[in-house]
């Protein structure tokens, strides 16, 4: 039995230790935010945060999440308020089919946590998720917008 929290709520799953976190989230716990794209760590559609670290959950065994805090895309919204990255994604109309976007957003949130004011090079290095619809031209400016919005918010706080 593995116990951890998902978006703040305690959850548990009686599964094989090597079962990827992605499938525990999706099929056992009905958390459909993270998506399946490749299963081999290539595309990033399955990205979630485990204790604040970005992981590709298709290639991360559930045993590694035991006792930890898992956050999915659906845990970013706080009290009905979108995360600045989510808002920037709307402002820049980033998604097309949207299938990769929960992973893209989780990667961007993680980047901004580490580098609140990322350079283009930082964005290149951090944003390695695949978008088959080709939304890259909007992801970059959206991250800059989110960085500015987050800075404003923390200046106010």
């Amino acid at each position: 039995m593995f116990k951890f929290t998902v978006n703040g709520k305690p959850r548990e799953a009686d599964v094989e230790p090597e079962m990827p976190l992605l499938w525990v989230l999706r099929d056992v716990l009905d958390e459909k935010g993270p998506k399946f794209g490749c299963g081999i760590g290539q595309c990033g559609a399955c990205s979630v945060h485990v204790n604040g670290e970005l992981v590709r959950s298709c290639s991360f065994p559930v045993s590694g999440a035991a006792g930890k805090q898992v956050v999915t895309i659906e845990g970013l919204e706080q009290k009905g308020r979108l995360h600045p990255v989510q808002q920037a994604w709307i402002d820049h109309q980033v998604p097309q089919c949207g299938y990769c976007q929960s992973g893209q957003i989780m990667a961007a949130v993680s980047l901004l946590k580490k580098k609140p004011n990322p350079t283009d090079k930082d964005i290149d290095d951090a944003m390695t998720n695949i978008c088959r619809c080709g939304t890259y031209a909007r992801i970059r400016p959206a991250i800059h917008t989110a960085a500015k919005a987050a800075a404003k918010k923390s200046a106010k706080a």
Partner: protein
Amino acid sequence: MKTIAKSFSDSRRVFLKTSAAVGGGLALGISLPALAQTKDAFAKPDQVNLWVLISPDDTVVIRYARSEMGQGSFTSAPMLVAEELGCDWNKVRVEYVSTNANVVSKRAWGAMNASGSQTIRSSQEYLRRGGATAREMLVSAAAQEWKAPASECTVANSVITHVPTGRTVSFGQVAAAAAKLEVPKDVKLKDPKDWTIAGKSMPRFDIPTTVRGKQRYGIDTQLPGMVYAAVAQCPVFGGKVKSLDAAKIQGRRGIQKVLNLGDFVAVTADNWWRAKEALKLLPIEWDVGAYGNATSATIMETFRNGLAQNDLPVAKNTGNVEQGFAASAKVLEAEYFTPYLAHATLEPMGCTALMKGDKVEVWVSTQNAEASLATAAAAAGVPVENVEVYRVQAGGGFGRRGTQDYTRQAVLIAKTMPGVPVKALWTREEDTQHDFYRPASLVRMRAGLDAAGNPVAWTARIAAPSIIATLSSLPLANGIDPQAVIGFADQPYNIPNVKVDYAQRNGHVPVGFWRTVGHSQNPFVRECFMDEMALAAGRDPYQYRRALLKDKPRDLGILDAVAKHAGWEKPAAKGVFRGIAETDAYGSYIAAVIEVSPTGKDAAGKDSFAIRRIVVGIDCGYAVNPDNIVAQMQGSVVWALSAILWGENTLKDGRIQQSNFHDYRMMRLAEMPKVEVVIAPTGGFWGGVGEPANAPIAPALCNAIFAATGRRVRSLPLINHDLTMKKA
């Protein structure tokens, strides 16, 4: 939302309620061409044949028949309805039309497929007419109440105003009265120059849901008691299961059934990962059929043999090419090749099916809900009336999801367990190796130039599989697959003697519609060869094209617009080289200028180049949702570059050699060059926007690479030429 099933039945309930509330609102089935034959369905307004629905609180529900898969038409199609209706855009909601209702009513809502960049261009007329019809009825109702002529009333933002008296009434207040009126036959559509909603960039309806992580795709279907299935198909196309050893995996945790379904194997379990892991360990013997030895080379041999034939079916023959060549001062000849390509939608193929008695329900990401429905009916062996297809947003389509092999599989599995919903899902490997690929194609081009370098004769001979013949299993009309010869047979240049012929070479590799289809490859050939001709003529490639497009104002117009934006008339900066290309595609006109710089050898000793800038422009006649067009163009450029740089599916032992994103490479953000989009709609026609921008990228890039390196690339991808891209 607990489960998808619940949300679906909720929306149905809402629908029934709104239908029941029709007495208080206006529900309008609009004047589709198809409605002429479906009077019955139309005659009962409380049935599901509603297109525009206005409630007393002014809410406007617009029903949408096609599929959303990222192209944005779930928003842009309703914009056209709302434009003519004159409603407040903020009060608009969009819902999918029921697939079953559409099929049963013999297409009251028209075609449901989203393909061929056609949502706007082939629906615009009835979408606009639908909005205008509703507007006229609302105005008539208001005018009657005021005992004033309708001509004295204006409409804006869901409010009708009687101009002389200043009286106003909202749509919702007169909707009930309007619903009782006769449906007008002839309505006047707005002049696009008076548009207030269409033509403006409107945020997409689906995006807030997506960024909150709440968008639900086919893969997210969750039903009570559902089981999960992993599937394996014969790695050689067309093969069958010979035998399997189910005992080897029975008893593994969670494993339920091991099914031999003839041309595929399914393992079901209580979650998908368990099913997939067990399937990997299941010994399966395949009867690979006749093609177990096929390779890329043997397929190429069949293409070569096609080029060597005489008396091939002719797609185009004007003038007399023999005489033209005989009169030429110079003759050029070149062969071009483009490979098979998998779609690789980011959401892999999959479908959920439930069979109960002789009824089937299907939840699926599809581009063609009617095809899903027909496929499910055939697989289940029930009449189409007994099937419902629930659509959800598709995690990419690009042509793959018009073909419903995966829906068939889910239904066949579900048939073995009546009453139990089954979600079948493919691995990425299965998805890469069992696609309906963009056909490979080998083309021989010849051109005869006169002493001044002008073309007098031009031929294209294409050897390639036929998508239509393969998918329909029917012989081609006149031996020609229009997609195989598109861009050649209708080439726009003023050349007196032109001949295009086609050698149909269908192998065992399934082929299908891949975003931009024939225009994903033929403009590469035609426009690169046009550069070869310009070079032989000693002329500037832009000016050479211009001269031959004198009588083609739309081709010329977009070519000029893009060249101007890119600053072609001024020499490029030192170390920067340019390529240009133009074509029509999907009713639009599209051109690109690409700037590259050679960047020496890369670490592996290969020639490298950097893309400095891509300028791509479109004349789509009318731009309904401009920002969405920009997005589609940006996305198309990425789509094109992944294919140009790395994209290729090769065969060995009858099977596709690539399996996942590590060996079927997709472009990533760091590799994204600067893209400048020019939207130059000239009006008077309706062109598609979802696919065209792919078309000019390969030729413009390869022409730029030639300018930069002197290396003429005549086959894709570039990686096979030891050409790699570096960051600018």
